[in-house]
């Protein structure tokens, strides 16, 4: 009843839905569909040998490995930053809160050249690490450093609202029942924050596997060693190997969609828990 009524009163349903669907189809769906259509042209054996080529497999390892490590580090520090921002008062807190979003606002190419210069052998940070035998720019570590930069806000901004909503009463109850502060944290606070933390991890990981601009400068781009998947796709495109580029892109696209699905399920489960 409500449904037919509300659709009856407000105007613009046809126009707005029409614009939305036409635009999405033309700008998003049709272009994305080309990947599936192009890959369908490729015989299965050719597809399989392309996506399991040793150089391609090595690039999966670099991309997924570095993304995983970066997302893990971001999960730890993201929780710490969110906790400090929500729970403690210190001078400059609002400024710090605003600056957390810098990786969202800074063009990735700028982040890329800045981090590369910072961690190169003669850079501000690199000059102290190089004598210790630690090389960051142009190695696997450099890729991880860039992905930590890019992924940090995802964890902080996912965990922050949950910490904000956390009821102090539960912690007070735990404390009055004799729990030590650390026990309260691990048994009361952490389980409540865990779903958000997992979502933040997944978001940072998903962003990291597709990231190009901030990584391409610092990675050194050595095939088999520090070549990330997005760069490999570009290399194949530049060699006019459209079929190869599309096949690898399809693998990445499926990985991204699975992650998107996981993230949506996680958020749905968290909402249900919150509602219960």
């Amino acid at each position: 009843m409500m449904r037919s009524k509300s659709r009856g009163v407000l105007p613009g349903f046809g126009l707005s839905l029409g614009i939305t669907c036409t635009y999405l189809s033309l700008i998003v769906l049709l272009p994305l569909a080309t990947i599936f259509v192009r890959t369908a042209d490729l015989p299965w054996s050719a597809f399989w040998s392309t996506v399991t080529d040793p150089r391609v497999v090595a690039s999966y390892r670099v991309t997924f490995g570095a993304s995983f490590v970066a997302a893990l580090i971001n999960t730890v520090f993201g929780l710490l930053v969110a906790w400090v921002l929500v729970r403690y008062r210190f001078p400059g807190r609002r400024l710090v809160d605003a600056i957390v979003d810098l990786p969202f606002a800074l063009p990735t190419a700028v982040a890329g050249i800045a981090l590369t210069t910072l961690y190169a052998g003669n850079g501000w940070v690199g000059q102290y690490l190089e004598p210790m035998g630690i090389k960051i720019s142009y190695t696997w570590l450099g890729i991880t450093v860039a992905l930590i930069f890019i992924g940090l806000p995802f964890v902080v901004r996912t965990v922050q609202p949950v910490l904000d909503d956390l009821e102090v009463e539960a912690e007070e109850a735990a404390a009055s029942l004799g729990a030590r502060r650390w026990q309260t944290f691990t048994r009361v606070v952490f389980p409540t924050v865990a779903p958000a933390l997992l979502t933040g991890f997944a978001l940072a990981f998903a962003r990291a596997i597709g990231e190009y601009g901030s990584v391409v400068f610092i990675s050194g781009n050595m095939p088999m060693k520090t070549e990330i998947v997005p760069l490999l796709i570009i290399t194949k495109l530049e060699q006019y190997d459209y079929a190869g580029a599309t096949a690898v892109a399809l693998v990445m696209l499926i990985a991204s969609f699975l992650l998107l699905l996981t993230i949506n399920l996680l958020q749905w489960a968290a909402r249900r828990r919150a509602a219960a």
Partner: protein
Amino acid sequence: MASIAVSRPATTAPRAVTRATGESRAVRWTLIVVALSFLAFTLLLPLALVFQQAFAKGLSAYLDAVKEPDTLSAASLTLLIASIAVPVNLVFGVAAAWSITKFDFPGKNLLITLIDLPFAVSPVISGMIFVLLFGAQGWLGPWLLDHDIKIIFAVPGIVLATTFVTAPFVARELIPLMQEQGTEEEEAAIVLGAGGWQTFFRVTLPNIKWGLLYGLILCNARAMGEFGAVSVVSGHIRGETNTLPLHVEILYNEYAFAASFAVASVLTLLALVTLALKTLVEWQQRRSASQGAADNEAGSSERIAA
């Protein structure tokens, strides 16, 4: 420990965290210092480096790099692209949010997921799909060649890729906001005889203006800063298809580091302005939200008094 908190006089303002559920001073400051050091190291150090490198060869070298014709043409292309992609996605975002939040129809959740798709796709793939569609070996490539239309390695390709990448920003910001606001006010306006557009501009727009602005700011920052997708479709032709982020890359790869960082510093300033505006809008949003709540409270107490 708990007794200290309890014996505190009730007149003092309640602290955010009482002793019973807070950490000791030492732990608290250790956590703050560790968190701030981490942020300084990962975020502020790169930021400071951009400006130090940009001015490494002095102010006049900096100004020369910024005023160089190729830089200026890259800047004007970047502005042109943002001035197309942002308004287009504004219209799309408002239309999508209106249809999704003001009406019920099957497949709504699917539509919301589809709007988010560009965020899930790697920028490189976002550029590649347009090469597959319009490139020389693409679907429409031969037809475009016959009609002498250039899309890939030309401005239209950059506009398309940027539009794709920035499509979700406005819609994503408006949908939860308008969902929360419901349809009552608009329905009242229509029942009282207002037209559709009148209702939108007089009732809906004032309610969503801060959320809309927020989405536009983020959309614009991404449109001007996009690198991966644009790099695939641009062809890097100096003075023609070179945007500011691509110009940073070209200069860097030519070992013109100071010039590269000079251009990068312009983009960094843009990012800082974006952050400042975004924070301002967040404050405004919170203020108007709490004002709305206060108005409601005042209204209800008036009603009670009456």
